[in-house]
């Protein structure tokens, strides 16, 4: 039971830090609350979908911005809009915020600005992916030790 308590405390602290540092917002907490016995892997499943989406969309943006003949900013914007939507649905606040700035640069047809945002969004996505993987690993450890996952408000 000591091991479980320790792990649970780690989980709570880590969760809190992710919220404090702006990686996750309240929407992520909402997803955790929706998870139940009928869908015990709900959050992990949604996160996986999000990562797949991120990779696909980031690739689309990169390819569109690479076009030497002239960048189709509407195409870039379409991908950014989608990423903004997905990140909002999962509670990935920092990724979402970069998307907001990214859309402004698309509207202004500013290629340099877009490339900077692309770099930022790639960075934020990989940071978040690592952090969520750590969080999910902690969850697994708690469950393996026979404990339950605390819900962090």
């Amino acid at each position, binding site marked *: 039971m000591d091991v479980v308590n320790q792990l649970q405390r780690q989980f709570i602290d880590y969760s809190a830090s992710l919220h404090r540092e702006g990686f996750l917002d309240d929407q992520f907490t*909402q997803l955790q609350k*929706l998870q139940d016995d*009928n*869908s015990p892997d709900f959050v992990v499943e949604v996160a996986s*979908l*999000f990562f797949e989406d991120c990779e696909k969309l980031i690739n689309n943006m990169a390819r569109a911005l690479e076009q030497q003949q002239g960048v189709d900013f509407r195409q870039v914007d379409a991908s950014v809009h989608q990423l903004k*939507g997905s990140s*909002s*649905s999962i509670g990935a606040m920092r990724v979402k915020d970069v998307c907001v700035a990214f859309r402004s640069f698309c509207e202004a047809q500013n290629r340099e600005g877009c490339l900077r945002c692309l770099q930022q969004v790639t960075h934020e996505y990989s940071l978040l992916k690592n952090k969520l993987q750590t969080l999910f690993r902690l969850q697994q450890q708690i469950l393996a030790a026979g404990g339950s996952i605390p819900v962090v408000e």
Partner: protein
Amino acid sequence: MVMAASETKFHVLAVDDTLIDRKLIEKLLKTSSYQVTAVDSGTKALEFLGLNNNDHHDVEVNLIITDYCMPGMTGYDLLRKIKESSSFKDIPVVIMSSDNIPSRINRCLEDGAEEFFLKPVQLSDVNKLRPHLMKRRTQTNVNKRKAMDEIVSPDRTRARYNELEVK
């Protein structure tokens, strides 16, 4: 009186082209004890409704909840098609959107949408659906009772017969 399970569970048709949002809306609806069918386009939504009428008379759709921004047929296009259809116009439609554009919201509500939810959709939003569904169910039951009364009432039958005789 004990109601059969199929009587109390409302059937919601969810339409969204994004996989994450489809998964999310499905979970929100199931958590609220609705039966859910999720499709990824307006075209597929219309197909589902059409097939229903021809083949499965006992499977109804009680509410449609749709994303606004979709390639091809938008949520607004789908709303218009539903409201212009004699078979489906009474099905309540709810629109979801990640963009907070007042003119868009007003247009949808003016053209027949019951509610407009901003994404990400919350459980508190889904709770707003029940009154729209309960209202329809009550109306349908009242209409059914009226229809039954007309068939059964002997006075009305006599009146009609009399009219015929006079002619």
